[in-house]
């Protein structure tokens, strides 16, 4: 089966092109996914910055009721899975979930161990390192980000406060947003890429293969059959309908066989001692 010219020429190339296109699609999907996740992390980081700036005034005035209202309002948003503020010791001070208020956060949990892995906790992290992805107890995929409340001069100098100037970190905001929209978008991109890749493969591999088969391999096969099976009596009867270089080849073959037939007839007449026919003289 693999000895025919079309299987030797088409099948390996078609398989190689198909494999390469699939590999490139997987890589492209990975790139798109990474870019979308980075965008989502940046969006969550911007959101956490907005919350920190929004709560700044209430914190400076030690207005815990306003702070609690702000956190509760943010927690009511559809895509916000959790939002909490905890102090330097890890005690949760504000959260829409009243059950977790005054509970200690687990420092070894994902998101916390980025800073608390070593003996000395890290003072600052890049935007991407602040983010973590996990599945919460409700089974929802969550992208969470932590942002520190640093001790500014206004905080340590405020008359109502007790933070001293040597304390660098006052607390941390932890906000988690649902990844459902991101998952839906990635699913749509995946389906569209599969569809378009399939169409591109069908068009390129399929069209090139069918054209090659119709224009090159089939005429060659017909010509090969013709040269193998034709007898000198049938040369003008079963001549295949071909064009281009294959037609030139077929015509050349036909001329050669005609000439051979003529020479054979000439020889035959010479042997019999008869005069050759007019057409040969």
């Amino acid at each position, binding site marked *: 089966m*693999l000895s025919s010219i079309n299987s*030797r020429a088409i099948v*390996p*190339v078609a*398989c*190689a*092109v*198909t*494999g*390469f296109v*699939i*590999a*490139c699609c*997987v*890589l492209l999907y*990975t*790139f798109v*996914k*990474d870019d979308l996740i980075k965008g989502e992390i940046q969006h969550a980081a911007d959101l956490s910055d907005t919350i920190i700036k929004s709560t700044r005034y209430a914190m400076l005035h030690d207005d815990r009721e306003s702070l609690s209202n702000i956190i509760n309002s943010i927690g009511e948003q559809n895509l916000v899975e959790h939002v909490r503020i905890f102090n330097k010791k890890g005690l949760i001070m504000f959260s829409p979930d009243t059950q977790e208020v005054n509970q200690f956060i687990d420092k070894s949990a994902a998101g916390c161990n980025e800073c608390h892995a070593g003996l000395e906790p890290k003072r600052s992290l890049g935007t991407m390192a602040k983010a973590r992805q996990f599945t919460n107890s409700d089974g929802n995929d969550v992208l969470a980000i932590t942002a520190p409340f640093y001790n500014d001069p206004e905080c340590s100098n405020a008359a109502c406060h007790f933070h001293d100037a040597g304390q660098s970190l006052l607390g941390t905001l932890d906000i988690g947003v649902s990844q459902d929209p991101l998952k839906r978008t990635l699913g749509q991109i995946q389906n569209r890429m599969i569809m378009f890749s399939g169409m591109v493969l069908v068009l390129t591999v399929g069209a090139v293969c069918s054209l090659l088969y119709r224009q090159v391999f089939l005429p060659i096969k017909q010509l090969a059959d013709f040269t193998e099976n034709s007898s000198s009596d049938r040369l003008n009867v079963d001549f295949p309908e071909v064009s281009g270089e294959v037609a030139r080849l077929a015509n050349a073959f036909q001329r050669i066989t005609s000439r051979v037939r003529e020479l054979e007839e000439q020889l035959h007449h010479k042997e019999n001692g008869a005069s050759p026919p007019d057409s040969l003289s």
Partner: protein
Amino acid sequence: MRQAGPQADLKQVPGREDLRQRIEARIRRLERASGTGLWSMVLFLAVSYFAFDGFAILPDLSDDVRSMLGAPPPGEMISLALVVYAFSSIVRTLARMSRNIKPYMGLMHAAFFAAFYTFYQLSGVLQDNFWAVFFAGISVMGLDNYYLWAHSNEAIGKERALLESMRRGGEENV
């Protein structure tokens, strides 16, 4: 010119036997070369099997070893290298096919794709990129091994035809 006398036949037989043995040795070598491609494919599939689990069979690298190795390359750079490698390999194999140059017989591709799995694993993005390496490997090694197999089979066919013609020539001499 054929030497027909008995003296000539006696002189010719040892040379013919030597040639026959050399042809048979070439056939065996070609068959082995054809099998090498199959073994490289088996090796690649075995590495892929372990890579699918994230090389769970291997122990985790210690912090000392990680710090000695340094920071892993970013996933984007590995992907770029993978695309360039797969593309250039396919083009090179197609060029060799079109010019009928002797194919590679080594395990080079299997080693390279195993290295890609390793780099992705060290960068922590193997899970996302496993299928890209797998399909790139299958297409590159499939094409390469197909050419090796076809080239070897063609050469074996020629050698066997030569053996057959020698056998016929020997019978005619007898």
